[in-house]
C-alpha cells in the first residue's frame, strides 16, 4: 500500500519531469507507476460499462497496461492515479497529453471502480487537476473529446465550464456497429481563472 498522506502536494516548484501529487478533499492524484496498480484493476479493462466510451481496448491485459504506464514521462504526457484518500484504494486514472508548441493539453479520465460512479469524483479531482495544469504547468488551453452518449462525462465537462467547440458526427463505430458522435470541448486558462474567482466570491458570500 502506498503512503499517500506523507507526500507533499506539488507546488510552484514543480518542474517538468517530476512526479505530480495533488490532494483534493476526498481523493488523491499522483503520477502512476506500474507497481502502484493492484491486480484487481484487471477487472476495469474487462468491464464493458467502464470501457464503453474509453479509447483503450477492451480486455487489455494488466501487464500491457503497466508497460503503457512507463511510456508517460511527466513532461508532455502524464498518467495520474486517483486514490480514495480514506481507504487508499486506486479507483481510476487521468491521462494528460501536452502539445508544447501550442501550449495545449488534452485530458481524459477513467473511473474503473464503478461503485465510485455518481459520487462526484471527477468534478472534485478535475478541479485540482485543472488548477495544476493552468496555474502550475502554465498551459493555455485544455481540450477533451467525449462520445456524445457518454452523458455523465458530457455533464461533467459542462459543469466545470468547458465550452462545446463542435461535434464530429458519426465519427466512431460502437461495439454494435453503430455510429457515435464525438463532442469537442475546450477551456481557456483565462476562463478557468474567472470561474475560480467567481466560485471563491460565492464561497465568501
Amino acid at each position, binding site marked *: 500500500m502506498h503512503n499517500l498522506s506523507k507526500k507533499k502536494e506539488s507546488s510552484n516548484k514543480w518542474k517538468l519531469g517530476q512526479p505530480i501529487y495533488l490532494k483534493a478533499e476526498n481523493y488523491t492524484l499522483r503520477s502512476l507507476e506500474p507497481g502502484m496498480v493492484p491486480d484487481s484493476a484487471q477487472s476495469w479493462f474487462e468491464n464493458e460499462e467502464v470501457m464503453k466510451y474509453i479509447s483503450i481496448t477492451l480486455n487489455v491485459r494488466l501487464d500491457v497496461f503497466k508497460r503503457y504506464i512507463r511510456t508517460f514521462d511527466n513532461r508532455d504526457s502524464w498518467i495520474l492515479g486517483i486514490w480514495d484518500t480514506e481507504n487508499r484504494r486506486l479507483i481510476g486514472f487521468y491521462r494528460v497529453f501536452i502539445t508544447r508548441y501550442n501550449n495545449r493539453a488534452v485530458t481524459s479520465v477513467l473511473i474503473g471502480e464503478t461503485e465510485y*460512479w*455518481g459520487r*462526484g469524483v*471527477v*468534478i472534485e479531482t478535475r478541479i485540482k487537476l485543472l488548477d495544476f495544469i493552468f496555474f502550475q504547468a502554465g498551459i493555455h488551453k485544455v481540450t477533451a473529446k467525449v462520445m*456524445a*452518449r457518454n*452523458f*455523465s*462525462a*458530457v*455533464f*461533467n465537462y*459542462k*459543469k466545470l465550464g468547458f465550452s*462545446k467547440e463542435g*461535434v464530429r*458526427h458519426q465519427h466512431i463505430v460502437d461495439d454494435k456497429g453503430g455510429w457515435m*458522435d*464525438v*463532442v469537442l470541448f475546450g477551456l481557456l486558462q483565462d476562463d478557468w481563472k474567472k470561474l475560480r474567482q467567481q466560485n471563491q466570491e460565492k464561497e465568501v458570500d
Partner: protein
Amino acid sequence: MENSLELAKDILARALDIESEGIAADDDMNSLEKWDSLAHMRLILSLEEAYNIEVDADHIVDLVSVQAIGQYLGEITN
C-alpha cells in the same frame, strides 16, 4: 412554451428525484444541487423513452437548464 416549461420541470423533477414545485423556470445545472452526472443521464434517457427519440449530440450538451429543456420539448412536440 408555458406548457413545455411545466413538462420540463416534471421530467427534470423525476430525474432529480425531487418535487417539481421545487424547480423554478430559471433553474439550471448549477442552481439545483441534485442535478449531477447520473441525474443528467436519467434526464436524457427519460426524454428518449418518453418521446421515442434519440437526443442528438448538440442537445445532450445543451440541455442543462429548465429553459433549454422546455425549448427542446417545444421543438419535438410541435
